[in-house]
Structures are given as structure tokens and as C-alpha cells.
């Protein structure tokens, strides 16, 4: 049986439904030494901001049960250097390039989007509306449906690139924010970002992160992510890119059955760089075993 793994995030056509999540893959250079980037459905870059950012004071990372907390603080070389030094490398591969953008103010997001729009090899932008480590920026912005609506709408005016809105699940009604992003013209939704968390060293009585709090990722957050994808999928018509603790094909399939049109592997890249490739194979095996030819038939097919 010839399988059809293709899927869409709005105007973005993917050859398969497995991408890699922002912040867990850098700009591709390091992992290219270990795996074939051409096998990926897409690469979502680490956040790019208008100006270079030094990032948070260390320690920036700590391990937690079935997960990890991070407060990297969006360390990145800034949009100019990204375009000059990082994008050309990524552009060699046969995969979709989605650039994650972040900022503290609407104007910053817009300037970054404008600069990126001039590049020919970018397929979409993912708007970081949910970084828990940017106090003045995305996280607060992303909790208010009106602000999300306004930001996406403004961005639509400055760029023709499809926009994925990356939303937080750390609100009581993720569906409200999702609807706001949809109404403003987002192409798709990325769900979910890390969840705010904290860990304390009881010997030193100090927080384990220099930033005090950080973003929780890994299998620990997966059931929350699956639930949010399921809720949002029923509330909007635009496609969802599901993520949160995917370690293998079975996990990816949960998101897909819950309503995600594609998935992104994040923290698992650190644990085992072969995870995205294996996830694709495991999805293929599941399709074969269940005699489903087209991957897209699985989307949202959870029976409740």
C-alpha cells in the first residue's frame, strides 16, 4: 500500500506531519551532523528577535520528573544575523522552514516579520505568543485574546507569509485565545508552548533556575497538551500543529486523533535526535496496520 503522509497547515503543504519544535533544534546546524534534515516535514527555528538577545542568567535548565524546566530567555543572534548566517544553511534542505518570531512589543514583531518576508526561502512564521520567560513580552501578550487578535491582524498587514500562532495553555480558556487568533487570520495554531513551572533546591533554599521560574516541557505535560489540542480543535476551523512531550509515534498519534493536522517533536530531540525520524516511521506503521492509506483521514478521529 502506497501511503500518503502529506498534510497541510493552511497554505503550508507538508510532505509528512512531523516537524521539530522551536527552541529544541537551534537553526539546524548541529542536528544536521546527526540526522538527515530532509526527512523532516518541517523545521521551526529557535525564536528570532529584532535585536540580538543575550538570554537569561544561569542556571537555565533543570530536570524534573519526566520533564525539564528551562529559562533560556530567547538567546538568539537577532534577525539580521539570522538572515545572513543561519537561513542559508537551513535553505539547502528539502523541508519547510518556519521561523519563530518573538518580541516585547507589537512593533518589534512587525519589524522582524517584515525583514523575514524579504527572504525567499521561508515558508511561514510562527508567532511566539507564549514564551514563559519573557516577562514583558509574548507570554503576557498571549494571555489576552484582544492583544492576540490585534497582533496577528497587524502582522498580516506587513507580511504575506502564513502565520502560525503559538499559544499558551496556561490560561483557563485556551479556546478564546485560539478563536481570536483565527479571526485575526492566523493560518494555523501551534499548541502548546511550555507551561510555567518552578523547582527549588531545598538544601540551598534557592530556585533551581536563575530566572526563578521557567517553562516545563517533556512527557510530563503531554496529557495537558493533548487535552488543549482536543478542546481547541473543536472550537476553531484552522489546522493545529500539536506539540508537548512527544517522544514517539504513539504520542504523536494521540495529538493527531485529538485534532492536530501535524505535530512537532521538541524536548525529545535532546534525549534522542533520531526521534523525529522514528516518529515518522511509527506513524507509517500505524497507518499500514490499520489499513489507512491517507494520513489525513486520521486527523481528529478520536471517538468520544
Amino acid at each position, binding site marked *: 500500500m502506497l501511503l500518503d503522509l502529506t498534510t497541510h497547515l493552511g497554505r503550508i503543504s507538508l510532505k509528512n506531519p512531523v516537524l521539530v519544535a522551536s527552541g529544541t533544534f*537551534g537553526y539546524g546546524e*548541529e542536528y544536521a551532523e546527526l540526522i538527515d534534515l530532509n526527512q523532516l516535514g518541517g523545521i521551526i527555528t529557535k525564536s528570532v528577535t529584532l535585536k540580538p538577545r543575550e538570554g537569561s542568567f*544561569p*542556571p*537555565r535548565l533543570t530536570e524534573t520528573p519526566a520533564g525539564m524546566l528551562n529559562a533560556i530567555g530567547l*538567546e538568539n543572534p537577532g534577525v539580521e544575523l539570522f538572515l545572513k548566517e543561519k537561513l542559508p544553511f537551513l535553505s539547502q534542505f528539502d523541508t519547510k522552514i518556519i521561523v519563530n518570531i518573538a518580541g516585547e512589543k507589537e512593533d518589534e514583531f512587525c519589524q522582524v516579520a517584515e525583514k523575514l518576508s524579504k527572504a525567499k526561502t521561508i515558508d511561514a512564521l510562527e508567532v511566539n505568543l507564549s514564551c514563559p520567560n519573557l516577562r514583558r513580552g509574548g507570554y503576557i501578550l498571549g494571555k489576552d485574546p484582544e492583544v492576540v487578535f490585534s497582533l496577528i491582524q497587524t502582522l498580516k498587514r506587513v507580511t504575506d507569509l502564513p502565520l502560525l500562532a503559538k499559544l499558551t495553555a496556561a490560561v483557563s480558556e485556551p479556546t478564546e485565545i485560539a478563536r481570536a487568533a483565527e479571526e485575526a487570520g492566523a493560518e494555523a495554531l501551534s499548541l502548546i508552548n511550555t507551561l510555567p513551572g518552578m523547582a527549588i533546591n531545598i538544601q540551598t533554599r534557592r530556585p533551581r533556575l536563575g530566572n526563578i521560574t521557567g517553562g516545563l516541557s517533556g*512527557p510530563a505535560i503531554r496529557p495537558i497538551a493533548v487535552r488543549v489540542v482536543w478542546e481547541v480543535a473543536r472550537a476553531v476551523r484552522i489546522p493545529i500543529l500539536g506539540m508537548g512531550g512527544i517522544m514517539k509515534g504513539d504520542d504523536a498519534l494521540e495529538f493527531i486523533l485529538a485534532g492536530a493536522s501535524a505535530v512537532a517533536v521538541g*524536548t525529545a530531540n*535532546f534525549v534522542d535526535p533520531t526521534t523525529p525520524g522514528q516518529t515518522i516511521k511509527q506513524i507509517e506503521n500505524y497507518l499500514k496496520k490499520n489499513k489507512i492509506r491517507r494520513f489525513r483521514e486520521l486527523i481528529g478521529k478520536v471517538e468520544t
Partner: protein
Amino acid sequence: MIQSKGEILFNQEVAPSCWKMQLLAPEIANQAQPGQFVHLRCTENYSPLLRRPFSLHRASERKIEILYQIIGQGTRLLAEKVQGETVDLLGPLGRAFQVKGQPEIIVLVAGGVGIAPLYFLAETLLKKPPLNSKLILFYGVKSKENLLGYGDLKKLRINLEIATEDGSLGFEGEILQLFQSRLLSFLSQSLQVFACGPLGMLKNIASLSLKYNFPAQVSLEKTMGCGIGVCRGCVIKGSQGYLRVCKEGPVFPVEDIDWAAIS
């Protein structure tokens, strides 16, 4: 940088709560340089989730060795592994020790399990003739039972200076005291120092390096995510901004580090 499954050839306790593991990993062994590390999975499940970094202790033609102290869940699981099992490895990673030119004296300072990469450095330097430098290893532990690979060290053609905190062997006290007491006698010649051990010891070596103007490189450790420079989780404050321990390190020239910012 290679990801491979390494077969465990042996895994045994060599001192109280200290273990040595030998793995069959030809490609990694082939590229390994002293000071570099391997990032390995202690378990196939997610408890603990992240890999653990270990300095390469030895690398021969097809095999690598690591020395590790049982500290937490990851190292406890590692100690339970037996011959024939495989471990997922990523390596060799990071920047190695670099001897510049031919100094008259090369001093290695090891505290506790910090001996791991320095043994590899000593062995490599001695294998690469002609080494015209005088090689001295200062090695400090709590008590003589905590000495790691003492038999092998005695076989190397190096000057060995041992310190034990309880005085059970060699100098009684900390290795830094012993090193400091000899330092002035080295300074009339060209000297390079390489160190690995507790942070306090490394900080002191950094300030001695500044005070007496000799080059020194230290191997640092920090909780790591990816181990290959992607996640930027393991940074320390450098004199010119943040540095990734996994990529710009784990071996740093002491002047690259902002020691006041490190605790």
C-alpha cells in the same frame, strides 16, 4: 560527533561509590580527544529524561572508558548496568585540552573524580613522542581508598603528587595546598596547567594563573540538555558573554570565564 549504541565491556566499582565503565564504541574512540565528553542515556525510559555528560577517561582503538561517581538517579541506574548491555552514546563532544607548543613543565591538577579527563590527557601526551616537557600530576582525594586508577597512574612516566584530606597517603590536606607549595619552584620555567575538580579548586587555580601569569585550562561541568550546543541550557558567564559548557567548553582557558559570576 556520532550517535551510537555502545556495548558495555565492563562496569565495576573501583572505589567507594565510584564506578568505571568501558564501552565498545569504535567511531567515538577514534575521534576522542582528552577533555571531550560523551553524553549518554542512563535509561531507555524517561526517568530520568535527559542524557548525562561524562568526561572521557580513556580511549583506545575501539573502546572508551568513563569514570563516574554515584550522585543521583542517573548514575545509580548506570551502575546497575551489566556487561553486554548497550548504552546510547553521543560523542565525542566539546572542546579538548590544548597544550600550546612545548612548555618545560605541564602540570595536571585533579580533585576527586576530576582525575577522569586528566588521566586521558597524561596518557595521550606520553604516547605522542617526543614529549620534552616534564609532566607532573597533582591528585587529591579524601582518603587513599578514594584514589582512582592509582595502579595505572604509577605505571605512567609522570611525577605523581598525591594529597589526601585525612593524610592516609601522601600530603595531608587539600591538593591545592600541595600544588601551591610547589608552584613557585615551577615558575622559573615555562609552565602550563590543566585542571579538573571541584569548582572551588578551579577558581583558585584561575586566580593563581592570573597572579603568577601562567596559562591554565580547566574542565567545567553544568547540567546539560542537548549536549551539542542547541538548547543553550548549560551556559556560564564568560568574560565576553555567555558560553556553552557543552560547545565552547567543557575545557576553558581560565581567562575566558567571569569567575566572580560563577557559583
